[in-house]
């Protein structure tokens, strides 16, 4: 199963980044083989709609699940439309820890946007 999660640096042992759209890196993890690969988050420098842009990227990687600190309405709607399950970090510190918690079923799944969205239009 392919999982994407937001992290503060391109390393599985790095601290998680709670931001979805503007989280520094997206780590792609294969839960069967435990291999990982880091992508710079395309939403980081977006002028607006970072969440929508990051969601589009996640969908293009054909991920089944995504883990982050919060999902605004645009990210939520996009990920939901793409059929990607969303999970929250909660008190998790590192990306590695997040994957372990995810596999143990300890992360909360998101059923609605968790924030009002950061900014849109201008």
């Amino acid at each position, binding site marked *: 199963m392919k999982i994407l999660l937001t992290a503060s640096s391109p390393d599985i042992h790095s601290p998680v980044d709670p931001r979805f759209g503007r989280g520094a890196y997206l780590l792609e993890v294969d839960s069967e083989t435990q291999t990982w690969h880091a992508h710079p988050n395309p939403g980081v420098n977006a*002028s*607006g*709609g*970072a969440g*929508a842009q990051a*969601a589009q990227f996640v969908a293009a990687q054909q991920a089944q699940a995504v883990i982050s600190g919060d999902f605004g309405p645009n990210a939520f709607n996009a990920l939901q439309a793409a059929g990607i399950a969303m999970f929250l970090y909660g008190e998790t510190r590192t990306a590695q820890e997040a994957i372990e918690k995810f596999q143990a079923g300890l992360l909360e799944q998101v059923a609605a946007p968790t924030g009002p969205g950061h900014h*849109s*239009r*201008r």
Partner: protein
Amino acid sequence: MKISIASGKGGTGKTMVATGLALSLAARTPEQPPLLVDCDVEAPNAHLFLHPKLTEKQDVALLIPAVDDAKCTSCGECAKVCQFHAIVVLGKKTLVFPQLCHGCGSCTLVCPEAAIHEIPDKMGVLERGPSETGVWFAHGVLDIGEPMAVPVIRQLKKWVQPSPGQVALYDCPPGTSCPVVESVRGSDYLLLVTEPTPFGLHDLRLAVQVAIELGIPCGVIVNRFHSPYPPLEEYCAEKNLPVWLRIPFDRAIAESLAQGKTLIEVDPHYSELFCQVFEGITAYLSNPTKE
């Protein structure tokens, strides 16, 4: 002639000056009263002082894309051109985020299947009408939860244009970014209301830079004046900014404004002072080198 009233900092007395000036000009030339346009669409207040009859109303809408799923081939051209990520392609689905859309029409133009058409998305309302004092009044009201004030201001200014020879006054929002620029654009003069404090001065400097960027001459009204604040006086002198009026700090004025009274109602003497400010500006504009 078009005069904008702005400030940088909020709460310095823009609306007090704009309504005071409008009433003074209406009394001065009752045959052609001025137009007052409240461009602070996030927090419009001028109507609370002038009590106009808002007889005409118009919705402000942005044209946003709607995708015809039957024609869409998910080619992703629309998502590629959208600078705001307001339209994204997720597998076989093309999704539109109205809150992100600027209404530029670029996606509609590039769609090779002609699968996108545009639909209006309401974001606010415009209202206008006369007040009993003669002032012609108009304002825009941004809908709650809508982030974008600029299109409302843009449409408001297109909707109400002064007749030939009529003075138009634009009461601007606070700040120095895009909503202020949209409000001030096209004005002949920018009247900046400030207060004699470090905040007032800091924000006045920013507002003056906006005026310079836009190439609009500007001058100052100092509100809540008690004693000269030397850094402000020095700044105005250095930048050659005329100080048209100093309105003293007076608890009676503050109390009356709180009750929804205008400065003219508090002290009719101001009517004459505002007319002098207006005449001063007119003279200054016809011969700017004199200053």
